[in-house]
């Protein structure tokens, strides 16, 4: 096939197409250059035809283009370029210089083998299609896609935050309403506890007196005539005075103990409802920890090896008595989680403008489905009497009021870590 001749009908069409058409021979000499190419390159056909392509257009990517053309010649096959990978072959102005927002005409090119009579290929014809409008639309679409993706991610993040906030609100709300209830209950119970415990005190004193009276009577009864003693014995038959004497104080003691427990629970409840001291002072958390350890030493001693890994802690603004209570709760829980003997590790330190106190135990751990409930008021897995289920929810409230948070990490069968984070410079309140 000879290069298209502009005088023939085919050549006329090639010349007037709204597509760039040019051809080159094996030596990269231009053999065809249609009007599209001429007007866009501002090089007329007469000025280009017969000359080496790279001489006319030194800015062309020579190595790449040579490989491409050799490919077509060797394989006698089509080859293509797409604007998405290679924006253009020739740098032409495009038809939207003002509104387009792209620097040059985007082009899709097709390289076609031109077969000679003998089937061999020496010339390669290239068409060059202006796809700037498509490219601009595509870019706009791609940009809005990216924007959409970004917005979607942002929304996802917000939803996550909302969920978290919602959980927190739920938790605080639960605590607040239970707190109110608890305050009422504590108040109501305090009164009867007051007089029952006062009465028990009196009862104990009266009992001591009664015992003395009884002793005196028993002593004197020995001196009564036999007949009288037999009458007394007949009237008190079946009553084991020695047993009564031994058991009465024990009963009374247990009642006092029970009452003391009730009093402690009420105290917990009171704390829970935020009564008592709330004034924040600068305090050394290590001192708080050590004094708490003194108080609970007995409970820990038989259960665990205690390891203290204290880091550097500045003083922080807090209500020390409340934090003491948090630490005590955590330590007692840790001890209670240990079946036989284990280890409790207290670690402290600071990260950024937060400090942490962590209590880790080698105890039973917490199953995943219980993990989210341990801070719920009255959630307990301990037998009646040894757990109220209030410790952690009180602690949660206290830490929250300090502007901090409690993190739990637990592996069933291996142990748990409760980590209290507190801000350096006191939270709200």
């Amino acid at each position, binding site marked *: 096939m000879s290069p298209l001749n502009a005088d023939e009908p085919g050549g006329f069409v090639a010349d007037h197409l709204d597509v760039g058409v040019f051809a080159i021979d094996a030596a990269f000499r231009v053999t065809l250059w249609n009007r599209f190419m001429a007007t866009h390159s501002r090089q007329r056909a007469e000025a280009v035809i017969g000359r080496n392509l790279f001489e006319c257009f030194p800015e062309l990517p020579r*190595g790449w283009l040579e490989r491409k053309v*050799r490919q077509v010649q*060797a394989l006698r*096959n*089509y080859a*293509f370029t797409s604007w998405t*990978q290679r924006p253009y072959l020739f740098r032409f102005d495009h038809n939207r210089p003002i509104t387009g927002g792209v620097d040059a005409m985007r082009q*899709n090119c097709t390289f076609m083998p031109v077969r000679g009579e003998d089937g061999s290929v020496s010339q390669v014809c290239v068409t060059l299609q202006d796809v700037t409008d498509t490219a601009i639309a595509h870019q706009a679409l791609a940009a809005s896609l990216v924007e959409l993706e970004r917005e979607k991610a942002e929304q996802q993040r917000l939803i996550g935050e909302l969920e978290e906030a919602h959980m927190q609100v739920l938790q605080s709300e639960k605590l607040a309403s239970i707190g109110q209830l608890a305050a009422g209950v504590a108040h109501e119970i305090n009164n009867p506890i007051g007089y029952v415990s006062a009465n028990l005190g009196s009862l104990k004193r009266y009992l001591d007196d009664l015992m003395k009276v009884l002793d005196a009577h028993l002593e004197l009864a020995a001196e009564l005539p036999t007949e009288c003693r037999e009458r007394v014995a007949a009237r008190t038959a079946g009553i084991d005075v020695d047993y009564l004497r031994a058991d009465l104080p024990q009963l009374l003691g247990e009642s006092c103990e029970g009452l003391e427990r009730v009093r402690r629970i009420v105290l917990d409840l009171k704390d829970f409802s935020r009564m008592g001291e709330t004034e924040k002072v600068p305090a050394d958390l290590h001192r708080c920890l050590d004094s708490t350890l003194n108080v609970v030493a007995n409970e820990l001693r038989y259960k665990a090896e205690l390891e203290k890994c204290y880091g550097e802690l500045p003083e922080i603004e807090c209500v020390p008595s409340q934090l003491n209570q948090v630490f005590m709760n955590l330590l007692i829980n840790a001890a209670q989680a240990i079946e036989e003997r284990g280890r409790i590790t207290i670690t402290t330190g600071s990260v950024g403008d937060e400090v942490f106190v962590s209590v880790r135990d080698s105890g039973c751990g917490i199953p995943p489905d219980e993990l989210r409930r341990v801070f719920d008021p009255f959630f307990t897995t301990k037998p009646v009497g040894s757990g109220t289920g209030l410790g952690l929810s009180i602690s949660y409230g206290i830490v929250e009021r300090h502007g901090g948070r409690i993190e739990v990490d637990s592996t069933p069968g291996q142990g748990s870590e409760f980590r209290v984070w507190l801000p350096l410079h006191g939270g709200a309140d």
Partner: protein
Amino acid sequence: MLSEDQRDALQELINIGMGRAGASAAAVLGEFVQLSVPRILILRPGLIPAALERILGSEPLTAVRQGFHGDLRGEAVVVYGAAHCRELADLMGYEDLLEPGAERELLLDVSNVLVGACLGGLAEQIRAEVGFSAPSLMAVDEAAASLIDVRDVDLPCALFVEVNFRLEVRSFACHLILLLVEEQILVLRNAVDRFLEAL
């Protein structure tokens, strides 16, 4: 759909075509290209994903699609494993590290060479005129089973020709799959018959 004889003849035609393809691909790539004996299957489209998975395994794949038209119509898919894409840059004489745009252009280029060579070889054997559309990227890092979405392929069956390319010196390999629709299989069958008569 094809008799035993027709099938053998088709295999033979495709073998010869592919042999030529190997030679011309080698000429372009400058390295000796090994081709597997093409495997020919006639499949219901629904079975194509499973066939792809069996052939290509489970590693993530990158695929280029190229349509062809004329006396033979269909689609060719060239599939690369992720590691092999990088080998290509070197092979085609891109010295520098490739930016994503250039890497894709390269993939399209090599696919075009392979598809052109193979189909050109086959077309020549059966004296068919075949033209090509521009290749396009079909999938990047996807599982074999989800490469081709067969849900909207509404055809009773497709011809599945699978060839492996391997370069002698490098570890580069890829797979070429030709998908022809049923009526095109008939075109091929006629060509095969002509070929058999001419013997």
